[in-house]
């Protein structure tokens, strides 16, 4: 089974858009069985309506999609209230984007949201590797303070095409057993292979990042990486996401 642990729906303030039929078509083209779907940042800044759009898509494709709610920690109790509302819509995890909502993921402003995640046993996907806001050790600091919350860092917890973020990302993973990474756009494949080899294949999850990234390239990034053991590759392609995100 192939599970895409990060996709997006909606119309983004930043120019991308994707509908549920387009997402399902992309999954079908590549043989992806299920996907975690999150809202793009909407042009009207209203994350509630964007969460509704994701919930509608999940209701229409219950066997294929699992929805995560997106909240803005700067809204404080409003963000917590939106989490409670999203649960009634059937959404089953949280998505935080420190870059697009402009907050430092290690800052106390995030605490009420994480406390709600802890209370409801919700996994949290953090858009990671963004300079100053969600670099590897900043995500690790969040994971350290909430050890009971499953935290999944996008982009290998490092976005740097010199590889300068790899050491912090691996320190983050080493120090926080509740932290995992996704594969989207990662520099380099041998970083992913090294994490799987040294820390275990269960720490890495395939993600396409559709529609920001090209799902065809992102799936091949995992399928063609020569250094994954066969069992680890299966975990990365689907088993880990099924265990951590789809319950």
């Amino acid at each position: 089974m192939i599970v895409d642990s990060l996709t997006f729906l909606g119309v983004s303030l930043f120019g991308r858009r994707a509908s549920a039929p387009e997402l399902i078509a992309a999954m079908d083209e590549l043989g992806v069985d299920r996907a975690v779907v999150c809202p793009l940042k909407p042009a009207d800044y209203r994350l509630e309506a964007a969460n509704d759009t994701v919930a509608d898509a999940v209701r229409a494709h219950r066997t294929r999609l699992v929805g995560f709610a997106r909240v803005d920690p700067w809204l404080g109790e409003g963000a917590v209230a939106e989490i409670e509302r999203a649960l009634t819509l059937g959404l089953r995890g949280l998505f935080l984007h420190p870059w697009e909502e402009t907050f430092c993921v290690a800052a106390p402003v995030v605490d009420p949201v994480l406390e709600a995640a802890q209370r409801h046993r919700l996994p949290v996907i953090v858009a990671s590797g963004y300079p100053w806001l969600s670099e590897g050790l900043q995500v690790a600091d969040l994971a350290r303070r909430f050890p009971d919350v499953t935290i999944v860092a996008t982009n290998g917890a490092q976005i740097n095409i010199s590889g300068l973020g790899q050491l912090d990302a691996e320190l983050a993973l080493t120090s926080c057993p509740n932290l995992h990474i996704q594969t989207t756009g990662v520099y380099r494949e041998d970083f992913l292979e090294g994490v799987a080899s040294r820390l275990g294949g269960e720490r890495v999850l395939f993600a396409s990042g559709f529609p920001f990234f090209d799902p065809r390239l992102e799936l091949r990034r995992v399928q063609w990486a020569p250094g994954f053991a066969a069992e680890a590759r299966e975990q990365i392609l689907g088993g880990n996401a099924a265990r951590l995100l789809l319950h």
Partner: protein
Amino acid sequence: MLFPRHTASDMRPDRPVIVDSHLHVDHVPALGWSLEAAECIRRMDEAGIAKGIVMSIVDAPEVNPGALELVAEACAAFPGRLEAYARIHPWYGDDAVALLERAITELGFKGLKLHPVTTIAHPAGEDTLRLIRAAAAHAAPTLFHCGDEPLTTPLAIARAAAACPEATIVLGHMGGYFHVDEAIAVAERHENLLLETSAMPFPAKIREAVGRLGPERVLYGSDGPACSPLLEVEKVRLAALDPLAEELVLGGNAQRMLEAVV
């Protein structure tokens, strides 16, 4: 089959000749990186790549006084398959220029590689411009690491392109993750800038770059062998270029640049 290997059909005469413009050989124990020439060749074969351009990870004369010899020996071990760029630290003034001259005229190197993250030398600093001009005197290109870090952004390197219009300057990684649009934009303003595709994760941006700049100004590179040459070739193919454009991007442009060096 999850992991395709190239087949005889990949090497047919009618398939474009693929030249990888960005590969590394070096040993950097501090980073745990050991990048062997044989591994470059193995991964080139896997992807159907005829020729690769290799360079070191660290610079000559510091932190490795033997960096040029290391690369030259790698090329000599695989004649006809590997060409070399000289990675040189601009701070070393006359010594740096002398190293570049020796690399091109004695060792047969085909270009200059600069990575300002490792050298803390601004792309438009006088020491750097001097090296770029020395390379250009041999019609040899300068490949910059061009990503998201200070000293490596497209706008910074564009200052060098403006100061050295006679030089061919290649933006390696074509801006990384966040600076790809900026890389295409500065290349539109400076005709002596080319874009190189390695590790940049968006196939659609390769297509956009070819459309805006023309197919002669985009080069395939992998940043292998640690990055997968096979996956990086696939990325160019996912850009769905027309056959002539794909042929130029995958190899024709690089071959033309290699042959121009005097």
